């Protein structure tokens, strides 16, 4: 069974969520869809890992949530970044960039 779509690289899900939420508040499915689209269908985020991650981040105070009406007028839980979340995004992004660059160097050597 070949798998075109892959699960998100371990440990990066939170960073991707933070980055995606940095643009605008979003509900769960919106988040999943956006990540899928932006990654051009390379990554697939299923609710079994997305929602627990959101719950964890909410506990850690990186995101907060709010019930709002959706575009088709249904109630949905919208997640948005907190200041703490924004800071976390910065540190995680720079850490990731460092690591990715290092990996790239190793692979090209």
């Amino acid at each position, binding site marked *: 069974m070949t798998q075109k779509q892959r699960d998100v690289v371990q440990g990066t899900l939170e960073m991707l969520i933070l980055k995606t939420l940095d643009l605008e508040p979003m509900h769960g*499915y919106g988040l999943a869809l956006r990540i899928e689209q932006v990654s051009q269908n390379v990554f697939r985020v299923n*609710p079994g890992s997305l929602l*627990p991650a959101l719950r964890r981040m909410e506990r850690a105070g990186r995101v907060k949530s709010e019930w709002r009406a959706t575009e088709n007028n249904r109630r949905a839980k919208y997640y948005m970044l907190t200041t703490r979340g924004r800071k976390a995004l910065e540190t995680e992004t720079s850490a990731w960039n460092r690591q990715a660059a290092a990996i790239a160097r190793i692979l090209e050597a």
Partner: protein
Amino acid sequence: MHWLRSLVSGIRALFNNHETEREMDEELHTFLDASTASKLLIGATPEEAARAARIEMGSTNAVKHHIRSATWESRFEILWQDFRYSARVLMKSPGFTAIAVLSLALGIGANAAIFSLIHQLLQQNLPVRDPEQLVTFGKSENGGILGGVDLGFFDMFPWSFARQMQMNPGPFQGIASYGSFSEKVTVQPPVSAAAIGPSAPALLMPASLVSGNYFSVLAAQPSMGRAINPADDGAANTGAVVVLSHHFWQQSLSSDPGIVGKTITVNHTPFEVIGVMPESFHGLKLELEPTAMWVPISMQPVILQHGSFITPDGPYFLHLFGRMRAQDAAGKNALANSQGWFDQQLRAAIRAREGASISPARQLEINHATVTLMSAERGVSLMRSQYGDSLKILMGVVALVLLIACANLANFLLARAATRQREIATRLALGSSRARIIRQSLIETLVLSVTGGLLGLGIAFGATRVLIAFVSQGSSYVALSSRPDLTVLLFTLLVSLGTGLLFGLAPAIATARTAPSSTLNAGARTAQSGGGKSSRFWPKALVTAQVMLSLLLLFGSGLFLRTFRNLQNQDYGFERSNLLLAQFNPKLAGYKPSQAPALNQRLIERLSALPGVRSAALSLTPPIGMSNWTATILLSGYTPAPKENMVSVLNRVSGKYFETAGISVIAGRAITTDDSASGLKVAVINQTLAQHFFPKGDAIGRILTIEINSVKGPWQIVGIVRDTKSGNPRDVEPVRMAYISLSQIEPYQPEVGPSSGKSNTQASAVAPMREENEDRFARTILIRTTGDPAKTAASLTTAVAQIDPNLVLNNVITIHDQVSSLMTHDELIATLTSIFSMLALLLAAIGLYGVMSYNVVRRSNEIGIRIALGASSTGVQWMVLRESLILLAAGLILGIPAALSASRLVRAQLFQLSPFDPVLMVSAVLLIAVVTLLSAWLPAVRASRVDPLLALRCE
């Protein structure tokens, strides 16, 4: 602050569980909807879109589970789930659960009960400030009034020396003294205090004499009013004040809040109540029946109804104790220093008493006089020395019983773990972690053990009550409580948890070791019979351990039972059937010594005429009892060596005493009713006395003089009677005894000075400085009956009340019960160890039966094949029996040496019995063998009845 917010929202989530759940559902629902909607957008049919969305999400329950486990509060939920699951599992097998909880409750309850007594009797400190600073001078356990002894050879002291120490406590913060025993006094409560009116009968209550600084040296504060102080304890017959015990104030004075300042009548003398002590305070010395009140020593003539002891050369009747300085109490040297100082005081006091000329030999003797200082932080308690060892042994016994119960449960759980392998394998395959399975399994055992523990607390409460009732021997009140205190509760909780871990850990680990794939693939039966050597080793090891421990307990209980029987069945020298005893005190009923002969005469006549009575007699002490009357004697024709021990036990008896008590006369004649006051004064001695002083057999006709002025004699020896046991049933050394004729005791005290002679009894023999001779009173009634003596008790009480309603009989008791009361701790330990060893044996039998039955079920497949291939039914039975015989043999091989070495530890408790008694060992082994075979026989029979067709088809 992050963790704080997490904590707050976690707690909120826990309490708003319902709300959280609903939000989660809604969120998932919108997710699904949005997903479906976006799939519709890219052109799928509604069915396809909904299906695809649902496939993407997977099981909503799984998602919810993942979300929940992202937070810490989910652990509680998991624990709660496990707990509910365990409870359900346990409820599903009510038989197993009931047996498990019950055996645990019995085991834990027994432990808690014994611990509760040990804690109260052996571990609790006195409820006073800095109890570790307190020391007693000598053991201070026995009480009485002594005369004619030297200072420093007993732990009792005369008033003059005690006062001297009180005034000059040397290195101590203070030294105080108290009466060495609590005398029963009559008490009339103030009319207003109780609703019972002035004509109410007087109460008989123990009262304790204390020095003026007793409470201040103890540092005990009254809960109401004030304590006795040195100003109260002045000259003889002054200071008529009394401090009450909480119990007496509560029971007899209905907790009268205004009691302080009122007057109660003690021994017909008014006393002012000045204070009430707190509930936990019973004084420094805890007697079986704690004292009801404390009175200054200055009131001794009233309390003891005796001439004044508060004289420079009074008798020895006080115990001493002191409080060391704070800095001294810490170091060991200080105790030695204090000891040195005290011994010096003691020796100086002896020299001062002896006067100017002291021989060098006597000087040397005086230099050895010493009384050991002993730590008294827990006070002095007779019960402690009496029951301490028994309780420690019992603690060991109940711990063993609990171990056996644990082994049983571990075995049951192991067997169940095996039958649940498929369930566990399924759970593992579905993604449960091993940690969670172990946790769930442990929770199950903890639910069992804590339930058992709770039930055990109830059992402990009941058991402690029974034990206390037994220990108190009919006293209306003892200072022991069956109410479990915090320590006991904590102990029970710890024991319960420890028990749960002990019997739950092995099965839990065995459970988690299950390999999911192989178990699921294999057939049910073969799955259970698999599991390797270790799964078959543990049940057997546990059964072996049970056999071993049961042997230990059975042998031990056998030793104690035989000891008790030996004590009971030994020759006491008097007839132990059809004899009824009663105590009375004519002095407290207001009789004068001059009225004694007439009273004695009337009592004997009236009681002899009762139906069912063969004969009646009076004496000072019963043939056997706690206290006795002893003195130094002189015999004509025998010259004692210097310092020779001339002490003999004495009794004063009416005519027919020997006939009534059933003591046979060996030579000469007994004291009879014809030995009247005007006749020749006669005495009878026992064999030991006769043989010791007159080995040639010429004792009769000799003259006996007693070194107590009131009964000095001379008495002519007219007969020799058999030796009797008069005190501790364990004493094998025969005691010298002399009986004098009660009716021939002089009506008046001789006029000469102080007495010598000594006495261990409260009915003292020290010469009172009064005219009338109080030794004419009898204190014991003996009645020989034709039938059951207990049935005569009622008519005895009525008859005495008819003679004089004020003459109260206390302690009407058959001789059998009287003898038993002297060996209560032997009876206690024998009874309890046999009960516990039977319980242990029963548990072991259940365990063995369980293991064997389970084995047979497990192997029925194999057995079926064997039978199909032609094995005979006896062959199959033997196969099962052989296995249990091997376990039995292993248990015995380990148990016999263990039992023999353990019995050496209790050697001191045994009586006329070797700790290696072979008969007992053989009986214990046989009993265990029979029980083992019985419990293995049923499974063996069942094995031989296995139908091969059924067994094979079941697969």
